[in-house]
Each structure stands twice: as C-alpha cells, then as structure tokens.
C-alpha cells in the first residue's frame, strides 16, 4: 500500500500562475523527495528535503516540510506549459527503497 497521498489529484492552471501540490504521509521519514514524470514515463528528480529542514528552494521550486503534520508542499512559481506533468512525492522511510505517493497531474494551459 502507498504511504503517501497527494492533493489535489489533478490541477489545471494558466501559464504564469503558481501551482501548489501537497503531500501527506503516514510514517516517520529521513527525507522527502519530489519527482516529475512526463507522459507516464521517465521520472526526473526535482528536489530533496531532509527531515531536519523546513523549506528548500531550487529555481522556481519551493518545497516545505512539516514533520509534525507529516506533510510537504511543492510550489512551482510562474508556471510554464513545459511544467505540465505528474508530480510525485516520495519518502525515505528507512525501508531501503523509496515509497511514492499517488501523484498530482498538473496541466498548465498556455
């Protein structure tokens, strides 16, 4: 069973707007990562945030982590049509493999 749940399941915005995706998980984690997947294939690593970090930035991406609420958010600012993809959070729970969430499908309308 999946340990992570993402919200919303689908999101449609206009180019230039910000997109926020949330991830909730159930067990304690060592770190949390976000991946992007285009067209159902080829996951690409975006950013990693460790359990002792609260916020991290990478370009137009901002990730927050609240371990007390067991939740994380991914913010994409000034979205572009090329950001259209599915976004997955995944948790390092010490299980020797990552546990992935169910994903958010983001559609950025040009």
């Amino acid at each position, binding site marked *: 069973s*999946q340990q992570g749940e993402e919200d919303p399941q689908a999101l449609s915005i206009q180019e230039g707007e910000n997109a926020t995706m949330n991830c909730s998980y159930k067990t304690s984690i*060592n770190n949390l990562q976000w*991946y992007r997947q285009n067209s159902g294939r*080829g996951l690409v690593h975006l950013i990693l945030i460790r359990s002792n970090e609260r916020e991290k930035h990478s370009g137009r991406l901002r990730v927050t982590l609240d371990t007390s609420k067991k939740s994380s958010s991914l913010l994409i600012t000034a979205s572009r049509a090329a950001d259209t993809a599915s976004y997955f959070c995944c948790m390092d729970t010490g*299980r*020797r*493999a990552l*546990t992935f969430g169910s994903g958010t499908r983001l559609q950025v309308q040009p």
Partner: protein
Amino acid sequence: GAGVSQSPSNKVTEKGKDVELRCDPISGHTALYWYRQSLGQGLEFLIYFQGNSAPDKSGLPSDRFSAERTGGSVSTLTIQRTQQEDSAVYLCASSNRDYTDTQYFGPGTRLTVL
C-alpha cells in the same frame, strides 16, 4: 554519460506467457530498483539490489515475479505465467550507493498482457 536504459520499451504478450524485462543502470551505480506503475497510479516498489547484499524482495507481488542482477550491473525482471493485472509500466532506477541517494529512472517498459 548514458542514463538508465530499459528494454524493450513496449512488450505485448499473451496471458500465461513468461516475459523478461531488462535494465542497464548507470555505470558505477551500486543500487538498482524496480518499480511498477499501473495506469494513472503511483509507483509501487518491487525489488531493490544494493551491492553484494541480498536483494530486498519485499515488494514482489507474487512468486511469479523474480529478478536478478548479474555482475552488479544489468538486471532482469522476469514475470512468469503473466496475468492481465500484470499490465503496467515497469520502471528501473539506479543510484550511486544506496536508497539514500537520488534515484535516476529509466524510461520504463510498457507491458500489456492480452
């Protein structure tokens, strides 16, 4: 350098047949993972190889599934007596040392069982 490659990219088979899926990890990467992604779903962990350690097979859904990693490099995922519910995209990933490192994913193999 080359990324993770997988073959075939697409495989259509009949129910009851065996299939083999191949993964070539990034050269030098010690850890290798197999995941399965059903249509519109998240990734489901299958198996994890790390160096010479015994693989973590805890995600394999049944004894019809098995995987090998020869010489610490190429891996083969075998599904015996395929069922329609095995239809999915099978993704392979590798990382430099172990599961704490960033995983680099291959393009996947789309398996369709008729």
